[in-house]
C-alpha cells in the first residue's frame, strides 16, 4: 500500500556553500565547490573540508548560553535563514505548538565541546572544566532540545543518531508519527559540525582523501568531511499548498560490517526498493538519484551495485559530496534538500571533480550539469553500522 504523501512546505539549509537555500542553489548551478584545504582548529591532516564560515563569530543568544557549542551554533545559524524560524512561528499559530513534531538527526552532536574540555582538563586530577555541560552540548539529544526550546515547540520530539543516515531517517519517523496521530505537522532536519573525532577517526580508518573527493572516479580515494544543517517543514498534502512531496522512504540494514558496506549493496538496494513500494512507483518512474556517493572505493562500488540492481544503468545519478564534503549526520537532510532543489529548478548536478569514471562501475553518472524535467528523485544515505535510508521525493503538483 502506498503511503499518504506529505508536502514539504518550506526548507532551509546552511553548509560550506553558504547560508540559506539560494547559496546552495547558486553553487550547485555554477559548479562551485565549497571544499577548502583543512584549516580546522589545529588539525594536522592533509585533506579538504567543507567548512561553514562565520560560526566562530555567531555565539548563541544569552538565554541559550548553556547550549553553546559549534553544533548548536550551526543549527541556529541555519534556522535563521530563509525566514525559516518565522515560518515555524506561523505553523505554531496554525497547528499549535503541541501538535508539531520535531525530528532531528545528528551523528556527533556537540562532541567538539568534550574534545575541548579534555584539552583543558586539570593535568593532576583529570578533572574537566566546571563550565563543561555535556547534557546541553555533547549529548545526542542536545540539538533537538535546543531547537525545541529555541522555536518554542511543545510536541513530540525524536533525536535520531544512526551515523550518516541520521537526518534522512527523520522523514520516515515524522511520516509515521503523523500517521499515528501524535502530531499534525513536523519539523525535520539535521545538524553535524566539524570536530577532531571525525577528522582523526576517518583518518585512522584510512578513509579521508588528501584532495577534493571525486565520487565514482577511477582514482577516488576517500571522503572530505564537511558540516551542515538543514531543516524542512512537513505538512499533510492539500491541493492549495504548493511544495515538493515526500512520496516514499525505505530503511534497512546491511547486517554485514560496522564500517564497510555490504559488497553487493544488498541493504542499500532494499532501502531503495522499499521507497519505491511505499510510493507505489516503479523503477521507470525515477528520473534522478542523488547518490550517497562518498567517494571511498568500497562505498561507491557497493552503491553502484545496489543502484544498478534496483534501477538499471540508465537512470541519471550523481553525488553532490564534491560540493559540500560528507556532512555525516547532516548528509541525509542536506542531500534531500538538494534533491528538492533539482525537482524545483529542473536540473541534474553533474558529480563535481569526477573526471575518469571507474570502468568497473555501471551506474549512469552525470558529470556535467544539465537541465532536466524531473518528476521523481531518490536520495540515498548510508551510515556506519550498515544503516541505510532512501527517500523518494516528487515535484510540486
Amino acid at each position, binding site marked *: 500500500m502506498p503511503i499518504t504523501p506529505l508536502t514539504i512546505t518550506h526548507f532551509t539549509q546552511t553548509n560550506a556553500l553558504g547560508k540559506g537555500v539560494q547559496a546552495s542553489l547558486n553553487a550547485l548551478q555554477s559548479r562551485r565547490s565549497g571544499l577548502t584545504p583543512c584549516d580546522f582548529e589545529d588539525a594536522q591532516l592533509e585533506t579538504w573540508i567543507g567548512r561553514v564560515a562565520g560560526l566562530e563569530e555567531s555565539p548563541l543568544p544569552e538565554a541559550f548560553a548553556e547550549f553553546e557549542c559549534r553544533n548548536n551554533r550551526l543549527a541556529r545559524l541555519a534556522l535563521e535563514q530563509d525566514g525559516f524560524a518565522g515560518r515555524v512561528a506561523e505553523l505554531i499559530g496554525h497547528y499549535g505548538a503541541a501538535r508539531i513534531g520535531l525530528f532531528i538527526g545528528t551523528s556527533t552532536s556537540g562532541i567538539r565541546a568534550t574534545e575541548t574540555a579534555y584539552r583543558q582538563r586539570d593535568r593532576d586530577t583529570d578533572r*574537566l572544566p566546571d563550565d563543561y555541560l555535556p*547534557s546541553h552540548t555533547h549529548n*545526542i539529544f542536545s540539538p533537538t532540545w535546543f531547537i525545541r526550546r529555541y522555536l518554542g515547540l511543545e510536541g*513530540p520530539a525524536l533525536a*535520531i*543518531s544512526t551515523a550518516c543516515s541520521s537526518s534522512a531517517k527523520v522523514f520516515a519517523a515524522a511520516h509515521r508519527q503523523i500517521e499515528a496521530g*501524535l502530531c499534525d505537522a513536523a519539523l525535520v532536519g539535521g545538524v553535524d559540525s566539524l570536530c577532531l573525532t571525525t577528522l582523526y577517526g576517518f583518518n585512522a580508518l584510512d578513509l579521508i582523501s588528501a584532495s577534493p573527493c571525486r565520487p565514482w572516479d577511477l582514482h577516488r580515494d576517500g571522503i572530505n568531511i564537511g558540516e551542515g544543517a538543514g531543516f524542512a517543514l512537513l505538512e499533510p498534502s492539500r491541493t492549495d499548498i504548493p511544495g515538493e512531496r515526500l512520496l516514499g522512504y525505505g530503511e534497512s*540494514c546491511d547486517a554485514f560490517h560496522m564500517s564497510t558496506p555490504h559488497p553487493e549493496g544488498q541493504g542499500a538496494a532494499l532501502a531503495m526498493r522499499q521507497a519505491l513500494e511505499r510510493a507505489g512507483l516503479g523503477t521507470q518512474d525515477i528520473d534522478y538519484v542523488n547518490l550517497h556517493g562518498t567517494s571511498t572505493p568500497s562505498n561507491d562500488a557497493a552503491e553502484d551495485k545496489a543502484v544498478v540492481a534496483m534501477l538499471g544503468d540508465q537512470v541519471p545519478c550523481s553525488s553532490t559530496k564534491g560540493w559540500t564534503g560528507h556532512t555525516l549526520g547532516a548528509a541525509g537532510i542536506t542531500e534531500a534538500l538538494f534533491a528538492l532543489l533539482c525537482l524545483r529548478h529542473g536540473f541534474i548536478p553533474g558529480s563535481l571533480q569526477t573526471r575518469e569514471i571507474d570502468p568497473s562501475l555501471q551506474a549512469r553518472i552525470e558529470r556535467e550539469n544539465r537541465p532536466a524535467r524531473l518528476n521523481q528523485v531518490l536520495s540515498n544515505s548510508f551510515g556506519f553500522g550498515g544503516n541505510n535510508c532512501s527517500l523518494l521525493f516528487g515535484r510540486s503538483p
Partner: protein
Amino acid sequence: MKPVYIQTIGIMAPGLVGWEQAQQVLSGSGPYQPDSLPALKPEMLKPNERRRTSNTIKLALQSIQDGLGTRCKKHDLITVFTSSEGDMEIVDKICRALDSPERPVSPTHFHNSVHNAPAGYAGIAAGSQSASTSLAARAGSFASGLLEAAVQAWAARQPVLLVAYDYPVPYPLSVPIPITRPFATALLLSVDADADTQLAVLNLRLAQQGVESRMQDAELEVLRLDNPAARSLPILQVVASGSQAELSLPYLPGLHLTVEISPC
C-alpha cells in the same frame, strides 16, 4: 494510539540478571540485592566480533540475548535502540587520544563510537536487514524509544524489538554525567492481540501533566534514577507482578508518557 503487546522482556542490571530473576525481585517474591553484574559475554557475537566491542555494546546485547533467547542469532525484527549517553568509555578514550601527540585514534574505537554501534552489532549477529533506529532523549530516552517502537510496530504491523541501555560513565566524564550502574532492557513489542505469548498490553498517550512513577523499594528507586534506561523499571514491575496500572514516564521537557498496563 492503538495498544501494543509485550511479548518478551530481557534485562541486564546489577541484581536483575535476566528476566527470570528480575521477575522474582520486582514482584516482591525475593529481595533486591544489587550485586555487581557477572562478566558480560554476549554469545550472540562471534568471539572475533566480541573482542572488538565495548562494555556498552556487550551490555545492550546481553539484554537482547536474555529477551530473545536463541532467536537473537537469527531474526528479521525491526529494532529501536535508545540510550541517553551512548558509549562514554569510548568517548573518553578518543578524547584522550586527541589530546596526545600524533592523536592516535583507534579505528575500532571510532567506528564503535557511533550511537548506533550496539544496533549494528546486534543486526550483524542476527543477520537482520530490517530497519533499525537509534535514539537519545536524556531522562526520557526510554519513553522516547517505547513510543517510537510502538509507532513503528503499527506502521509496519510487525513486532519491534526495543532496546534501552546506558553504561556507567568513566571519570572524569562521570562528574557531569553521574551514571554509576549499568542497566539494559530489551522488550519485544507486537501489535498482534491474538498471539498467546503476550505478557501485557500497553496503551500509550502523551500528557502535559504527570507525576513520575517511582519504585517503592529504596534501592530500586536509586537504580531507576541513576540510569536513564532504568526509567523502564515501573513498567517492568507492573508486568512482573501481573497487575494493572497507569504509569507516568518522563519523556520530554513539559511532556510525559502515560502508560496504561494490563495483564493479558
